[in-house]
């Protein structure tokens, strides 16, 4: 929860100097930038990969844990999830939760 609050706070601080659509880019936690290689930042993209932007952070954390343990079937996310610690996943999830399209 602390992480979430800090991220939201930093996003709102930044909004005063950057365009609203870019709020928080400067404060993306380690690893978050890589996700958007596959998970589209906007709804304009034709892909079956779900968006992370604006998602409930708890959902992202739960999904990552399930990918990591193998409980949830995946094509690549099982292999990628193992590369991130629980804290890293939490920070990434909180940041995506605070983003807007």
């Amino acid at each position, binding site marked *: 929860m602390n992480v979430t609050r800090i991220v939201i706070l930093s996003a709102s601080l930044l909004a005063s100097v950057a365009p609203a659509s870019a709020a928080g880019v400067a404060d993306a936690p380690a690893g978050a930038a*890589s996700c958007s290689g*596959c998970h589209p930042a906007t709804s304009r993209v034709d892909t079956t990969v779900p968006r992370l932007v604006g998602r409930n952070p708890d959902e992202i954390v739960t999904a990552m844990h399930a990918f990591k343990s193998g409980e949830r079937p995946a094509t690549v996310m099982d292999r990628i999830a193992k590369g991130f610690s629980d804290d890293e996943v939490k920070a990434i999830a909180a940041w995506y939760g605070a983003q807007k399209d």
Partner: protein
Amino acid sequence: MTGKQTSRRDFLKTAAAGAAMLPMPAIAQGAPGQLVVVGGGFAGATCARFVKRIDPRISVTLVEPNATFIACPFSNGVIAGLRDLKAQEFNYDKLAADQIALSAASATGVDTGGRSVTLNNGARLPYDRLVLAPGIDIRWDGLPGYNEAAVERMPHAWKAGEQTLLLRRQLEAMPDGGTVVISAPANPFRCPPGPYERASLIAYYLKTKKPKSKLILLDAKDAFSKQRLFQNAWKELYPNLEWVSLSSGGKVTSVEPASKTAVTDFSRHQAAVANIIPPQKAARVADLAQVADRSGWCPVDAMTFESKQQPNIHVIGDAAIMGAMPKSAFSANAQAKVCAAAVAKLLAGEKPVEPRLINTCYSVVAPDYGITVAGAYRPKDGVLVDAEGGGVSPIDAPASTRAAEARYADGWFNTITTEVFG
């Protein structure tokens, strides 16, 4: 957060005090900095856009001579007649709309001491930070017989565009029963699974259009990316595809363009169509900026992608070497975003965040058959190393998984090209 604001102010104060004596062009004007990016591919275009998003006050100039970018990922589908080259083409209109200054020119010199780039149109661009994302050049001294003239007879098609279409036309013109020869280089090179995806899709074309033909893939290596997955798929789908490893005499030692012959230590392979994927190196601007080492590639720091040879110059994408990350469009895009964040921090006098990166490489073996290699990376002792996990698609996955990965591959291409150019 308050710490960050304070340190930026303190830095600017210090910088302003020092500006009277030091040549710091942008900071002297009170701006947060001047960034020049050379190369408008997956790495360079991404970096330019993300720096602008992170701090719109940073002045960003993208130096790229071509008005149209032609993407390499998925261009093997163009060669096999499964896709139009138009689907590979992108322009820089959205980057211009992001207030990125576009300079349609080539870099002809880099003054590392005076921090400026000179261009072939006579312009000189001063920089506080320079990002080089130039991609690859062919090593014309790397394979005897393979010179600039040879590419018409034996296309490399390793930079997408006219070469891609030329190889496609040669395949289309080939009579049924002809032999296609592909030569794959030793590591490192752009897109490690690329030669094997290409062999797969050309084999698909031959199987569906010219079934009496065969394909020989001559390799300067004994092992390659996603090897078991490719080989299993070939066994299942393409009996006319023969892979010749290094230890079986697969290394092409010279070529004879007039007869389209690839020569190895043990035999001569005369082809109806020959695709030579030659040895490569970082593109020329890396030499101008003195950031390439004796390997021909550019070693960089794993935290910021700053050159290990020249301060204030960062190298990202295929031209860079930084440890375990492969030379892929996904890597280039991921590195560019990390580099953008680091450059913005450094220009503000702040410490960059220790990064985490991901790579995912899709290869399409047939239209409904996709496979991947994926990995996460973190810095250790100045290079990027593999984090836990990673690896390739399961060896024994059902057809539905292969089909799903082929669909995800399409989605990946749409997502990444939208992020970079859309």
